[in-house]
């Protein structure tokens, strides 16, 4: 057996691993733990929506339209959160809606982070004209107000779920590119990079294996907050009728549908908004905790 001589992995019993240290630091933040719990619950609901939801989100029970939730008069235990004007069960729709929102949030985060990392690394590594071009394009994207840019993109490629993801991804791309470029630039000037270069490490390995892991903490924080922003943005597009199209149980679109019922059946309008608020708030709480735990420079509070 060859002896493992890589020093950083050798630890004494008192030194916790990086993951454990992170968890200890994260656990201290009560809000972050609450956020994590709620986010986990929403994720579980989204995954098991077909098991948990009492009905299909599109099933119309025409005999039970506009039922109020159980806590108000006339509520029916068969439909705990009431029904909408078409007799669709609100609870089932909200549960299936979490799938759409989380799917949008996560796909936007993954795609924009991967693209952002590649572009940011390219800009910092090549410098010169490539750096300038990438930065100018990001400046352009940022000069158009986020929702207006999303509207522009959706107007060109048409409103549906996939195009919402494309639009919101483009809107949030500059954050990742700029963050990645800035931290890669500061890492590239450090001694360990020079050492790696001297020992003959190729550029691809240098960027993705040597430099990238050291830039990860701020990226992870940005990614967590990016998920919640993407969910809000997509819900806004849905509300304007430019996102997922009815009858899909998308929270923003459900809200827009219920606008006219604001006085007569306020719960149909209120519930999807509460779902959005709880999800986004929980992710942001978690993101704040992540930031405090991962980024010691920002850990002041």
């Amino acid at each position, binding site marked *: 057996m060859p002896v493992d001589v890589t020093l950083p992995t050798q630890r004494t019993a008192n030194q916790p691993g990086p993951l454990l240290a992170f968890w200890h630091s994260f656990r201290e933040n009560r*809000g972050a733990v609450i956020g994590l719990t709620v986010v986990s619950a929403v994720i579980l609901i989204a995954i098991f929506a077909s098991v948990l939801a009492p009905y299909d989100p599109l099933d119309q029970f025409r005999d039970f339209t506009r039922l109020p939730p159980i806590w108000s008069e006339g509520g029916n235990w068969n439909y705990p959160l009431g029904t909408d004007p078409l007799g669709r069960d609100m609870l089932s729709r909200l549960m299936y809606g979490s799938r759409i929102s989380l799917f949008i949030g996560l796909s936007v985060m993954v795609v924009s982070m991967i693209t952002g990392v590649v572009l940011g690394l390219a800009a910092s590594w090549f410098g010169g004209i490539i750096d300038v071009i990438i930065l*100018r*394009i990001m*400046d*352009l994207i*940022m*000069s*158009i*107000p*986020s*929702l*207006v840019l999303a*509207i*522009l993109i959706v*107007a*060109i490629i*048409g409103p549906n779920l996939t195009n919402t993801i494309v639009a919101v991804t483009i809107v949030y791309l500059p954050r990742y590119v700029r963050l990645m470029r800035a931290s890669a630039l500061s890492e590239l000037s450090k001694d360990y990079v020079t050492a790696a270069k001297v020992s003959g490490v190729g550029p691809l390995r240098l960027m993705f294996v040597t430099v990238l892991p050291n830039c990860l903490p701020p990226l992870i924080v940005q990614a967590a907050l990016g998920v*919640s922003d993407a969910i*809000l943005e997509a*819900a*806004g597009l849905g*509300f*304007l009728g*430019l996102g997922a199209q009815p009858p899909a149980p998308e929270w*923003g679109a459900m*809200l*827009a549908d219920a*606008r006219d019922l*604001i*006085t007569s059946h*306020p719960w149909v*309008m*209120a519930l*999807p*908004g*509460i779902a*959005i*608020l709880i999800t*986004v*708030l929980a*992710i*942001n*709480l978690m993101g*704040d905790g992540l930031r405090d735990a991962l980024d010691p420079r920002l850990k*002041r*509070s």
Partner: protein
Amino acid sequence: MFRFLLRRLALTVPTFLALMFVTFMMIRLVPGDPIEVRRGERGISPERLAELRHEMGLDQPVWKQFLDYVWGLLHGDFGVSIITKNPILHEFFHLFPATVELSVCALLFATLVGIPAGVIAASRRGGLYDQTLMGIALTGYSMPIFWWGLILILIMSNTLGLTPVSGRVDLVKYYYPQVTGLMLIDSLISGQKGAFLDALRHLILPTIVLGTVPLAIIARMTRSSMLEVLEEDYVRTARAKGLPPYRVIGIHALRNALIPVVTVIGLSVGSLLAGAVLTETIFSWPGVGKWLIESIGRRDYPALQGGIMLISSFVIVVNLIVDLTYGLINPRIRHAR
């Protein structure tokens, strides 16, 4: 300073060019030929089609069309709305004051509430005030503002009857000429009794809704910036020489803590206009945001193109001014890089 100004100006030129290119391409990429949109349901003879193409310059090579577009923009020609046949520049500036009035009020509200909230939270760090205020701030930051607006309408207008549901002015009771386009000022100029209060009442809910997210950002930013400054030596010195806490916090610390906050406020114009799109839609506020959304519904692509061009140019110019002012008061910025 002059070199800094030149460099910053030079940086915006490519951005503007790219913006022109993107909006130019947009009208080419949307489904539906502009001629087909115009001719409507009825058929059209091939001669008339060619004539129309020539009129609109669509028979020219694309680069020529782009140059014509840029030339037009530079001369203030942003195209003509398909629906109303009015010049887009005219339509835009007819509606823009409403958006400006709403945005300025929202920003004022956010600043006047957000900075004190952040200062209180920082000076009571970890305490009940701090936790409550920051909890509210994070909720505000996570708020889907279209839902928030509807809930406020439900409570304030429909249930309590305190504020009007939509619009800028009660047209049944008041009519006054638009002088500045800002209702708060126009209503005062008109001298009609109650007109100013009416305009103010219409503004309250939209201002709160549009101001919520910036308020949360400003409060959080002020708090973290204050916490940083409160650890500085000169704050300790000020405390040590026996200055009362309100002077230490309110003057010594706050002045320096506000620098990053002011930058955030200045650079929030873009997100404010994005929020205005939703706010105006909810409250039927006749501004450019609502107009933009309606243009999509009407497939009025020239209006969409011109509107996006104008809004983005506005954001670029405001950000440029913020940058330049910042460079003016902070020499470290101008000499960086």
